[in-house]
């Protein structure tokens, strides 16, 4: 197809021709084109089908407010649906496709829905698809989803990268039209750090779309000159292709920069960058958006906004039609007529709703005073318009101008309410602006070029930046507007929201059915709820609602705009945080050793921990775990326990501090000793547990659970700074500073004797259970040794500086070879702690108390500690409270199920008969059967009782026997040996 609608002029590079495809058809354009301008140049009027009725639709606007021309861009994984053709920059090889039709765009099989439209008005879905209820999910919803909709996702992973960034400035200028450029220039000349962001790829705003002159030069040339001056200044950052999508607290703005969307490939660069801009002040110079007038069949391809038709002619050198009529209620429409005629486009008529003289001379055009368009003809594109007086005019394009709405969106992002101005028949920014923001130009209701330039300088002077800049000469062009929102004589459907297919009749019907508040109207009709957020639809709909209720528009209200101004891709919001990089992974110090030795890993919080170490010939994870347990209990096992939180606590009051944050006493802990500690929440619920070692007179080392390492530290700092600010105590997290290994099993001491330097006496007498101390290992390397045991075996934990962790693991395993040492992972660790009856995360689940855990007597009543007052509430100390006990299956061959509920024999499995729950289960290789820990009412007094463990989730139940939680070595002989 040739570019037979291409006319002269414009900001395009005619020396270069680029090719693209639309629905597979090859077309041509030039650098500087948008997809929309190129489609129009090639005579492609029909570009898509509407959301609900599958009506043929064409390009309606020339900017980001476009409701109709949504297309799929690119192919394969990079395919992007719902892209506005009006802002998609053309590049060589671009592939675009229309959306939402079955069959071809020209013969959409779903267009039949349009014939059913009398039945499909507002609220149809709510009223019709209610009954029978069960049909909704299986029948109605899938059918509606298949017939209504937008573009398709590729269903492949997004191949592009996205980034995030931070910028700081004195002044953020939003929009690079006449007022924005003047504001930027004045502030930059005064030395301010300025950022200018504009959603377009050429700065200048409407100056590029008009034939108005500034300082005797064309508007576009003047803008290019200012942009060049700004670009040369080191205190200015120009950001074209960048949409300021949200105004957030304290001068922070969200900006989406489209870095490579205009290129065939991103070349490895981020496709888009989401900027967070910190500004002292911001000038909102976002311009204005033209609004349509609603009349019968006003949605046909070829019906366009007059300002857009003018922009296509002036900026892109494209005639939107061969015969273009203008329908206007304002002076502005006349400029479209004049510019088109000047470019040689035939304008048969200017239809002005006002009974007023011509605004300017438009050769060849009939001036129809006080007339309106009431209907159109042309199935896949406009052919004829019918006026209210009955006459028909043959046209292939109708330029409609209903006046302009200031783009107040960002002024509303912090609850600001726009105010109505009768003289403009439009909302302008209210007084309650986001702090630091000022508004200039058309966005502020300064609708003429001269006024926009003037305001641009004036606002930055008010902010205290500018020295007096010379104002360029420009005219105050005529902008009179007499509001007309719809043509009441229209009998055919008159569209308001083109994207969501909402008509004037729908709004009237909503009113009849009682949906009179604007927010109700919006939700009932879906007006303004499409991806364009009703930029061209909201105000006319509001006006019609006002008419219905006999109120003024400001009395009827306005909808509040929320971020984002235009859609922001999820990929840009995610940035680099996706897939493997969704959050950081923390690796244990011995990670490389574990990888090299067959470990399978599991995520524990942010950590990757070895779960088990499979050996050749093992059939499944159970084989490995059983072996690790048996070999540890039989001789020696080694486990990286670095992930436990470690907090270094120092100061003269460190002991007193511990006494207050643990529920049990720490005042009597001797130097060189370790004690188990239980922390409560202030409400008396058990929170975290661990051990604390007293390394010196005023020096303690606390361990926390892996899961709570961060929050325990946070709470300790809270206690230190907010509760007892004068205690002499200091905290630092050393979790990452020390690599720590559990060395467990009958041969633990024998191994350590070969690793810890000889000067240190490790005999049971010199270094008994719960001892700790500073030692050296491997010939002089400083280390810490703790004789503590989670497994129930003779066990130690040895800590070395983290950078030696991987080597330490190697040494322990190498030296341990003579004892058949095995590395063990988190599964074996879990099995052994259940065998020993130690509580862990499943037991400290935020619902249990020390009383429930069988540690009620640990809660000292002789001292203040966090949680002790509320832990003594009668309800929490009930005599029939659940207690932590052990369970084994009566039929030893059965596997217990975690989460099972305990029900008495003969009782029904109901809530009333619930006696507790199984919290942890494991297969114990030491005992040869399944074992469990659980909470049972009065459990400690019911040893030997047989109960049912019922798991409704699994649909299973089994008989279990209540036993001691200490399945292994109940007297602790092993760990003390």
């Amino acid at each position, binding site marked *: 197809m040739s570019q037979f609608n291409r006319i002269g002029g414009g900001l395009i590079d005619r020396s270069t021709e680029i090719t693209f495809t639309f629905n597979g058809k090859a077309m041509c354009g030039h650098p500087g084109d948008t997809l929309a301008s190129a489609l129009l140049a090639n005579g492609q009027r029909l570009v898509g089908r509407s959301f609900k009725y599958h009506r043929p639709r064409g390009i309606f606007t020339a900017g980001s407010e476009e409701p109709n021309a949504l297309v799929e861009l690119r192919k394969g994984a990079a395919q992007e649906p719902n892209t506005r053709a009006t802002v998609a920059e053309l590049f060589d090889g671009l592939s675009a496709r229309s959306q939402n039709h079955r069959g071809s765009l020209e013969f959409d099989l779903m267009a039949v829905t349009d014939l059913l439209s009398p039945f499909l008005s507002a609220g149809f879905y709510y009223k019709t698809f209610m009954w029978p209820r069960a049909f909704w999910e299986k029948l109605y919803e899938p059918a509606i989803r298949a017939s209504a909709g937008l573009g398709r996702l590729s269903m492949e992973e997004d191949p592009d990268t996205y980034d995030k960034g931070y910028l700081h400035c004195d002044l953020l200028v939003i929009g690079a039209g006449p007022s924005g450029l003047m504001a930027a220039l004045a502030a930059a000349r005064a030395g301010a750090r300025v950022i200018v962001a504009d959603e377009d790829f050429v700065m200048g705003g409407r100056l590029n779309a008009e034939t108005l002159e500034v300082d005797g030069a064309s508007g576009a040339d003047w803008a290019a000159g200012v942009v060049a001056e700004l670009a040369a200044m080191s205190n200015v950052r120009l950001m074209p292709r960048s949409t300021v999508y949200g105004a*957030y*607290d*304290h*001068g*922070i703005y969200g900006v989406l920069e489209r870095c490579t969307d205009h290129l065939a490939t991103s070349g490895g660069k981020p496709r888009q960058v989401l900027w967070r801009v*910190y500004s002292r002040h911001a000038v909102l110079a976002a311009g204005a958006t033209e609004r349509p007038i609603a009349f019968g069949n006003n949605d046909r391809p070829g019906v366009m906004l007059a300002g857009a038709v003018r922009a296509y002619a002036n900026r892109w050198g494209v005639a939107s039609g061969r015969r273009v009529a203008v329908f206007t209620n304002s002076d502005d429409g006349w400029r479209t007529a004049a510019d088109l005629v000047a470019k040689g486009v035939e304008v048969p008529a200017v239809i002005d709703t006002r009974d007023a003289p011509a605004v300017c001379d438009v050769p060849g055009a009939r001036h129809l005073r006080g007339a309106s368009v009431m209907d159109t003809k042309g199935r896949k594109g406009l052919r004829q318009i019918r006026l209210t007086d009955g006459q028909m005019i043959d046209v292939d394009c109708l330029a409609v101008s209903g006046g302009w709405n200031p783009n107040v969106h960002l002024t509303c992002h*912090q609850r600001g309410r726009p105010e109505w101005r009768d003289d403009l028949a439009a909302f302008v920014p209210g007084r309650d602006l986001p*702090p630091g923001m000022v508004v200039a130009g058309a966005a502020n209701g300064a609708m003429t070029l001269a006024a926009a330039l003037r305001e641009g300088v004036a606002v930055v002077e008010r902010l205290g930046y500018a020295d007096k800049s010379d104002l360029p000469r420009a005219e105050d062009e005529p902008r009179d507007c007499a509001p007309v929102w719809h043509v009441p004589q229209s009998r055919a459907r008159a569209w308001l929201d083109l994207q969501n297919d909402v008509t004037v009749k729908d709004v009237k019907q909503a009113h009849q059915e009682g949906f009179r508040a604007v927010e109700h109207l919006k939700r009932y009709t879906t007006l303004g709820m499409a991806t364009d957020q009703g930029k061209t639809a909201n105000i006319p709909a509001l006006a019609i609602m006002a008419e219905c209720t006999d109120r003024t528009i400001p009395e009827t209200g306005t909808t509040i705009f929320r971020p984002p101004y235009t859609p922001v891709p999820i990929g840009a919001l995610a940035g680099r945080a996706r897939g493997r990089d969704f959050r950081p992974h923390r690796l244990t110090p011995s990670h490389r050793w574990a990888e090299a030795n067959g470990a399978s890993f599991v995520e524990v919080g942010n950590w990757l921990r070895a779960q088990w170490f499979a050996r050749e010939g093992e059939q499944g994870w159970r084989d490995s775990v059983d072996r690790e347990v048996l070999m540890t209990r039989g001789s020696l096992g080694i486990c990286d326990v670095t992930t436990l939180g470690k907090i270094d606590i120092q100061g003269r*009051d460190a002991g007193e501090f511990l006494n207050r944050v643990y529920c049990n006493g720490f005042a009597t802990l001797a130097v060189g000793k370790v004690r188990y500690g239980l922390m409560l929440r*202030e*409400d008396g619920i058990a929170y975290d547990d661990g051990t604390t070692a007293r390394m010196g007179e005023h020096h303690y080392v606390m361990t926390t659970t892996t899961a709570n390492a*961060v929050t325990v530290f*946070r709470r300790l*700092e*809270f206690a230190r*700074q*907010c*509760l*007892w*600010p*004068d*205690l002499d105590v200091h905290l630092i997290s050393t979790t990452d500073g020390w690599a720590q290994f559990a060395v467990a099993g009958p041969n633990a001491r024998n191994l350590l004797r070969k690793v810890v330097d000889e000067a240190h006496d490790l005999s049971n007498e010199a270094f008994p259970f719960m001892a700790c101390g500073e030692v050296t290992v491997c010939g002089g390397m400083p280390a810490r040794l703790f004789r503590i045991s989670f497994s129930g075996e003779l066990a130690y934990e040895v800590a070395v500086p983290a950078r030696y962790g991987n080597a330490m693991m190697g040494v322990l395993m190498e030296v341990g070879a003579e004892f058949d040492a095995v590395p063990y992972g988190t599964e074996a660790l879990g099995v052994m702690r259940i065998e020993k009856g130690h509580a862990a995360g499943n037991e400290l689940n935020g619902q249990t108390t020390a009383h429930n855990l069988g540690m009620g007597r640990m809660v000292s009543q002789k001292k*203040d500690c966090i949680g*002790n*007052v*509320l832990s*003594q*509430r009668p309800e929490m100390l009930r005599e029939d409270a659940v207690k932590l006990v052990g369970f084994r299956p009566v039929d030893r061959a059965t596997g217990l199920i975690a989460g099972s509920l305990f029900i008495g024999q003969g009782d029904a499995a109901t809530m009333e008969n619930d006696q507790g729950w199984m919290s942890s289960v494991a297969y114990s290789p030491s005992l040869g059967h399944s074992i469990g820990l659980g909470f049972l009412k009065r459990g400690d007094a019911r040893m030997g009782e047989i109960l049912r463990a019922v798991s409704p989730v699994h649909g299973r139940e089994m008989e279990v026997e209540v036993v001691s939680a200490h399945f292994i070595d109940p007297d602790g002989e092993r760990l003390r040996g």
Partner: protein
Amino acid sequence: MIINHPLLGPRDAAEFVYLGDAALIDRPDWQAEDAAEAFHTYGYLRDNPAGAHQELWYHEQGDRSWLVVTRDTVSHEITAVELARDVARARGRGR
């Protein structure tokens, strides 16, 4: 939001962790007659004002200071930022 840290200057709120009402500083006396009642109030009852609100923020991605921030819950305007330790001392907390 931006929090003007008394020691470090303006910092993005993303560096902080929010806790809530600064009344949490006023932990009751565990030995008082009405300790149970007082701790219940301390633990569970909060004002929810539309307007100025003193609240605790923790500079976790920074210097680990707990701060008392006076913020308008309607406009998010921050009118004062103090070290919680200073506030605690001023309210009579010590050892």
